[in-house]
């Protein structure tokens, strides 16, 4: 990966920080391909399996191509008590995909996630880095339509 000159002045630990490198790559390319992981491994002088181990440990890193908008609906208890199943069902209906899948046009990926810390406004979900709260099926329609 390219390293800009101003970044070299930061702590040397950061330069060789595998997780930071993978996060940067994920932001840039949308997912971590096998080729990319092999490249990272080589640049750090570690095994590909070690890179793969980190890449698959964290739920916000993906080793598969993802849709432009990644929907993550909270499946934890407080959202469950506030009818998150209804929200899951309406996303399934609107997009025609189930959790773990990506739409054929590559616009949406759909996942269920653990508590996102918005239990006071449950049910809640994230689309990429944005949080959407107090969800209803009507709101889901509007939010998904607004995703270009």
């Amino acid at each position, binding site marked *: 990966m390219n390293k800009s000159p101003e970044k070299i002045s930061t702590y040397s*630990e950061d330069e060789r920080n*595998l997780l930071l490198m993978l996060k940067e790559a994920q932001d840039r390319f949308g997912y971590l391909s096998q080729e990319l992981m092999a490249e990272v491994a080589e640049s750090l002088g570690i095994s590909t399996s070690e890179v793969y181990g980190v890449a698959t440990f*964290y739920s*916000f890193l993906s080793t598969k191509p993802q849709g432009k908008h990644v929907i993550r609906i909270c499946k934890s*208890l407080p959202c*469950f008590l506030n009818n998150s199943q209804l929200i899951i069902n309406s996303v399934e209906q609107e997009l025609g995909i189930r959790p773990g899948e990506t739409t054929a046009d590559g616009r949406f990926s759909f996942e269920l996630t653990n508590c996102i810390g918005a*239990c006071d406004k449950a049910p809640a979900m994230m689309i990429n*880095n944005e*949080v959407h709260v107090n969800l209803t099926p009507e709101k889901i329609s509007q939010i998904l339509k607004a995703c270009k």
Partner: protein
Amino acid sequence: MPEKKVVLRNCEVIDPRNITTYLARDGFKALAKAYDMAQDEVIEEIKASGLRGRGGAGFPCGLKWELARKSQGDEKYVICNADEGEVGTFKDRYILENDPFTLIEAIAIAGYAIGAKRGYVYLRAEYHYLLDLLINAVSQAKEQGFLKDYDITIREGAGAYVCGEESALMESIEGERGEVRYKPPFPPTEGLWGKPTIINNVETLMNIPQIILNGANWFSQMGTERSKGTKVFSVSGDVKKPGVYELVMGSQLRELVENLAMAEKVKVVQVGGATGRIIPYEMIDTPLSFETILGAGAITVLNESRDIIDAVHKTMEFLAEESCGKCAPCREGTEVMVEILGRFSKGEGEKRDITVLEQLSQAMMLSSMCGLGQAAPIPVIDSLQYFRGDYENRIREKQGGAVA
């Protein structure tokens, strides 16, 4: 006991994007006062206050700092744990979005006390939308000259509950899988990159400036014998007014759940999130403190229409998914529990399953490497104690009407 705002005193009062509004509320006066004290005096003050960690474990804060101060090392680190991943917890989010300045001041005081030049805030990936606010607050504090020889870096997680555990958190900052470390050594002697490190929860740190300004004595007058000060709670579930509430330690669960959050027809309250206690309504007058029940302050209310086994099953699914997988008791134990609880929730339990659950609980508590696996059986144990009949009614033979 009443609501009292110590940790939340600036929330919804100051503008979190404007440091002058914080300075008008005694902002950074505690840091100036700390600089006038010897490092050991600062630590003594925190020790005398009786402040204990608010992330769930309740370790005495001043003692942690003292251990790090006494450790030999050319470099030391302060880490603020903002990886609030416990199910039903959102108080740190509320604090961060409303008052990032107090936190920064506290990290600077902690750095001075232990002799660190660098602090980290480990922010969970789910709170990425707070990153700009935090970076802005750090740079405003720097511009005002409050962080002269001190760097504060915001490090983001990448989605892993277990990274709230301090050794897994450090692994993650170092760029590795967030797997827990063997202990000892503990972080104050060997932490981040092997250097002496203190790791404090957001809420713990929020108390520091007030303790320095008002004195240990002021702080320790609040609360119970072994739980000083206040506690911030996140209340959600079957309540009319979900939200963040700060109460003096020792307040009753009833006050929080029924009076403040306006819950009705309560069946149980889960106190402390996924690894927390399950408290039946008969025990609603239990005080909230380290001596009794507390955790990180997640309060999830279930009303009479709810099924306990479904809730415990859901909780165990979460823990199985978030187990880091390093030690077998947690990795395998949570999976087996999910399987058994799943059968109970479908009415297909076996008589011997209850014994298996109890034995497995003991094994996991005794032999897991970290708090996740050690505490994972708590909801099972509590529900078996208070709602054993619910389990017995779900045994297959009983379902069919046969004699069990």
